[in-house]
């Protein structure tokens, strides 16, 4: 009870909980779930963009894309580390991913179908992710907050790179412009859904707010995203595929149309276009890499034995 009281004090004072501090089990569990889900998203998220590395249309874009996908892997690494400070191993988390117990961001269950998808993922998907993540830089759990500061910094860089790539394409040939518009058409609504169901339908939010894990509601974040993105789309010269999109003078915000939540939930629940493919690809990479990991362990054991012998 004293521990709980101390915890509550820290939380109320917007202080940081650190790995060795006492914390409620539910807090710990929620954090592990959220951080590992975020880490999984980074790892699974390597695949849609990785899909275009071999075909990047210039060496410069190829290098930028590899560096970006590498950054995502890096985010995955330190998010797994942050989650490990809560007492769950990477193997346990990977196992939860591979058996379908853990989720990852549903946006990655859509295919990347043309080169502009890479730019649009930077601009819109990373853009939406940043909106979601910036509040987490102030999250109550120290290692997570610090990881998120680094993640957000790099994601902002990726977002600008993605947008810049699209700007160049929109100054190009008719085919290039068509690619960008096609990619925007396919990704726009999925990005709005990334902020999660309306607050009214979002059960985890209240406790998350209390714990300083979640700080802004889904609908507010979504609105913020729409407001920020509409002018960018205008500069770019693409049409956002929503006939209901219009400026609401009274609200001081952009109104937007109805999100297809049935489609969202179908995908979250495993019936999107690529759920099976993404997960199976991760599982296969892991399984086929087993002999590599075993070799590393076996060799380390042998080395250790040799050193012990020498020491003896």
């Amino acid at each position: 009870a004293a521990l709980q009281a101390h915890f509550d004090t820290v939380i109320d004072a917007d202080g940081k909980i650190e790995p060795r501090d006492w914390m409620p089990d539910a807090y710990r569990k929620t954090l592990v779930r959220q951080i590992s889900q975020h880490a999984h998203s980074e790892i699974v998220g390597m695949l849609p963009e990785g899909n275009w590395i071999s075909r990047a249309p210039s060496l410069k874009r190829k290098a930028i894309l590899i560096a970006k996908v590498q950054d995502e892997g890096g985010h995955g690494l330190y998010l797994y580390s942050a989650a490990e400070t809560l007492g769950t191993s990477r193997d346990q988390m990977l196992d939860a991913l591979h058996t379908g117990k853990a989720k990852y961001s549903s946006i990655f269950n859509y295919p990347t179908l043309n080169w502009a998808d890479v730019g649009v993922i930077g601009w819109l998907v990373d853009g939406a992710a940043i909106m979601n993540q910036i509040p987490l830089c102030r999250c109550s759990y120290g290692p997570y907050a610090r990881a998120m500061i680094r993640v957000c910094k790099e994601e902002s860089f990726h977002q600008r790179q993605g947008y810049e790539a699209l700007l160049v394409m929109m100054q190009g040939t008719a085919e290039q412009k068509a690619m960008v518009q096609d990619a925007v058409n396919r990704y726009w609504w999925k990005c709005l859904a990334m902020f999660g169901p309306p607050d009214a339908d979002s059960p985890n939010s209240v406790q998350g707010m209390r714990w300083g894990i979640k700080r802004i509601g889904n609908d507010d974040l979504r609105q913020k995203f729409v407001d920020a993105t509409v002018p960018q789309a205008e500069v770019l010269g693409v049409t956002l595929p929503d006939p209901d999109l219009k400026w609401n003078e009274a609200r001081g915000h952009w109104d937007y149309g109805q999100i297809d939540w049935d489609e969202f939930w179908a995908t979250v629940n495993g019936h999107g276009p690529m759920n099976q493919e993404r997960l199976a690809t991760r599982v296969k990479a892991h399984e086929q890499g087993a002999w590599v990991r075993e070799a590393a362990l076996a060799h380390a054991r042998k080395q250790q034995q040799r050193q012990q012998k020498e020491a003896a």
Partner: protein
Amino acid sequence: MKAPIDYLLHLADNALVLGQRNAEWCGHGPILEEDLALANNSLDLIGQARLLYQHAAELINSNASLAQRFAHLQGARQDGRVTEDTLAYFRDTAEFRNHTLMELPHHGPLVGYAVSERDYAVTIARNFLVSALMVLMWDSLRASKDEQLAAIAAKSLKEVRYHLQHAGDWLVRFGDGTEESHRRAQNAIDLLLPYCEAFWHPGPAESAAAQDGTGVDILSLREHWNALVNETLAEATLTRHDQPHPGYIAQGHTGIHSEHLGFLLAEMQSLARAHPTAVW
């Protein structure tokens, strides 16, 4: 002084083709850290390739007879001038000058249109054998009479030293790891060593570069390369079976490749070739 254009292309194509191959692992690696390491390797190699292609493009653009020779490459030009992307994306298989070793897929010996799972042992063994060469090459090329090339060499040397360390460490883990990893590593070494014979049979461009001091006398590196390779193989408890036989010596560096490069280039060049006038 400038190195012969085909020598620059040889070095650039080596880096690009191996970089392209290694990037195939991105998202499919055996462990997240290796995804990152391979991506890093690939980034370094593509970075090297870019510097070399840029150098080659300048040379072409400033020399009428070279400009004529490459006049058929019309894609990705800027103000009519050849760019790094013109050279990377619009040359055909027979115009590439990389060693055949670089273009082999990450699996055992199969024809060009066969499919097979990737084998990380092949990846590691190749990176080891190539990095051992490139560490020596770049080291020597720091003294190239082509100053730009010398500068590229100085930068690249640091990178491939790390590549050699990384691949060598894993090769030792594989060789001196489990039964399976040892078998895979030995198979990979057996598969790839014969392709390394091509290192010691320089093409005309390499010989010309060695002659005029812009390149390296590659044969002078052979003993050192053997020592590097043998040392790590010994530590890895792996065996060299590459008794010289009177058989085929790979000729990729003179433009006669394996069946694999065509498929690699078809994929790599597909988007750029579909939009030859586009700027990205």
